[in-house]
């Protein structure tokens, strides 16, 4: 067990920091510090391409697909320096964190050639079409249908909460491809270009005034036969494999974003005197402890090459960070006091901390609610008996 980094790794850290800081002080200074996923989307697509041009886009991927084959320690270091430099989140995070690894694991060689270099290069931005109005927590009850017709798959139905669909090039969906099937059987994992007549996107305005999520409507939308991942009917297996990728190195970059938020709260508490309140002090200390435990928890998951030893523990990660961040949002407002509830910004745009307070209510819902996470932990990690289903 070892937590320190080697001299070579520290040199790599310096190299990352130098390049990232140079970009944020130079050509891309206009996007530094942006904390929402939607702001300046076009410039951030250019940033994706800049990362790729210098081989910093997907450093953990194999060299042949646009990566560097970087070690775990190097990926950890890059994620940390990325956030430390104030670089905004990746607008193609679904492409590089979910679609890419899924194609890498389950795709054909032809699909790898066709998609991976373009994802790494920021030329293909992906979004995810899983949830539906009647398939949220109960994801397996999707109703969107796909049928094979003259060599192509024709898709009809509706997806919801499609994050960033309005700036994406491609979407992956799970759809029911076998009539009469229920639950996880008979589902297929399809990828299709968004810019086609059969796909319509409508933004959903959220409680923070932003519109990162969308409704996506499919009316005889087309998916080419060679854009299926896995075989027809294997969609559930692929989707579950994909969700496991969410526990990857990207979580460490996400935590550095949390670090910046906590630091901003600490600065606000010092500035307005709430840093003298013993209860606020306890809560700030708790937040600091929780953030560190996320970091070392993630390092523990990532360091164990024998995943069977930590698979159960990995299931606890989503509810852990989501709950931590929702609490952080409440702490932020308690530190700001009533003045946190007004802004001089035009429109309904909030600064980092009030926005954190509002946005973090989504954290404990999307990607599986806290309640679903508890079911998963109890049933899969602890082996407790399954809840009987109501419809069988």
């Amino acid at each position, binding site marked *: *067990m070892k*937590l320190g980094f080697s001299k070579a790794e520290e040199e790599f850290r310096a190299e990352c920091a130098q390049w990232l800081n140079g970009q944020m002080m130079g050509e891309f200074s206009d996007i530094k510090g942006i904390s929402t996923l939607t702001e300046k989307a076009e410039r951030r697509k250019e940033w994706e391409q800049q990362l790729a041009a210098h081989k910093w886009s997907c450093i953990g991927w194999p060299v042949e697909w646009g990566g560097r084959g970087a070690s775990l320690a190097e990926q950890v270091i890059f994620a940390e320096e990325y956030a430390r430099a104030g670089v905004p989140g990746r607008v193609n995070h679904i492409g590089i964190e979910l679609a890419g690894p899924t194609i890498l694991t389950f795709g054909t060689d032809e699909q790898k050639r066709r998609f991976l270099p373009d994802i790494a290069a920021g030329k293909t931005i992906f979004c995810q079409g899983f949830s539906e109005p009647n398939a949220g927590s109960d994801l397996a009850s999707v109703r969107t249908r796909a049928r094979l017709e003259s060599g192509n798959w024709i898709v009809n139905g509706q997806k919801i909460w499609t994050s960033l669909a309005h700036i994406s090039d491609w979407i992956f969906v799970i759809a029911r491809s076998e009539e009469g099937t229920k639950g996880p059987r008979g589902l297929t994992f399809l990828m299709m270009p968004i810019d086609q007549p059969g796909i319509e996107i409508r933004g959903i305005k959220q409680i923070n005034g932003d519109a990162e999520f969308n409704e996506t409507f499919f009316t005889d939308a087309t998916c080419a036969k060679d854009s299926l991942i896995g075989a027809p009917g294997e969609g559930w297996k692929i989707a579950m494999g994909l969700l496991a990728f969410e526990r990857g190195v990207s979580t460490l970059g996400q935590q550095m974003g949390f670090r910046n938020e906590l630091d901003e709260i600490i600065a606000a508490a010092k500035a307005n005197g709430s*840093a003298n309140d013993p209860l606020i002090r306890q809560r700030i*200390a708790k937040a*600091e402890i929780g953030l*560190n*435990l996320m970091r070392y928890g993630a390092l523990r998951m990532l360091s164990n090459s024998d995943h069977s030893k930590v698979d159960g523990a990995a299931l606890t990660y989503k509810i852990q960070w989501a709950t931590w961040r929702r609490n952080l949002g409440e702490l932020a407002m308690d530190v700001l006091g009533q003045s946190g509830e007004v802004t001089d910004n035009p429109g309904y745009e909030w600064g980092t901390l009030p926005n954190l307070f509002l946005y973090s209510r989504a954290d404990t819902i999307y990607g599986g609610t806290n309640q679903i996470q508890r079911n998963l932990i109890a049933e899969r990690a*602890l082996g407790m008996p399954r809840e009987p289903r109501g419809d069988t």
Partner: protein
Amino acid sequence: MDFAFTDEQLMIAETARGFFVDNATSQRTRKAMASDGFDRETWQAFCQGLGLSGLLIAEKFGGSNLGMVEFANIAEAAGTQVAAVPLLGQTMVGQAISAGGTSEQKSQWLPKLAGGEIVATAGASADLKANGNKLSGKISLIPHGNVAELFILSNGGNAWIVERSANSLSVETPTTMDQTRPLATLVLDGVHGEPLGDSDAAIQAGKTAGWICLAAEALGGAQACLDRTVAYSKERVQFGRAIGSFQAYKHRAADMMIEIEQARSAVYWAACAVDEGSDNAHLALHAAKAFCADTFFKCAGDMIQLHGGIGFTWEHDAHLFFKRARSIQTMLLDGNWHRETIATMLLGEAA
């Protein structure tokens, strides 16, 4: 960077787990609880049979010269069984003398501690008065002070080695809620104390070892609470279903696991940071002590609740965990103190 156990560490953990399950049985622990809270059979087997009492002590003094990660593996295993052994005090004293003892003190005491020939423990009180090397005053709440033969006593600034056999020293043993680790009171009236070579280093090393020990014990204890509760939930049937199939039950078990996995990260982060002399070792120690104690208490309380009536009986082991958890919460300073220390690191002193 590789935050996973080495094969050697996994082997030590597995050996320790097996040892405490086989030796520190409920029957033996309860026998100790009914007398002086010291399971001598288990302790002797641990020190002499297994040879693990000198884990952190240098080889030239008869120890194994291993690190805090390995020690945490052992303390976690001891905590899993709520073993009634003086591991906490023994380790604090060994570390204090290793870090702050003179070379004579090291040669005199470390081999005896490593071999388990004597039982040692530590205590501190600002009320301890020193007149030269003559100590007077009352120090209470000393873990396993009732059975220890060697003490390190501190008034916060200085620390002394005191032998049980010294003149004018008496030991009082009040009834302790956690009978697996009785808390004793030492009354000194001009007792000879031998000053440690470097008191600051000794006190710091003693505290560090104590915090790691308590955090790791708490982790082991919390995991045992969860494991035993989950096993029960699969057997106990009500309303025609195993009670573990109800969401109200499952979600509570899941919440226990969420805390426990963080506690595990906390213990091994702190242990590893201490071993590496990392900059954030202090943060890690305070975080681990505060977080793990709270986790254990939550899990032990939930264990009673989720067992229903049987969990409230003397016969069931749930109360052993519950009382140990409460004891760990306040021992070597409570969670609020550790969090305030962290707050001071982040925010400065409160005005």
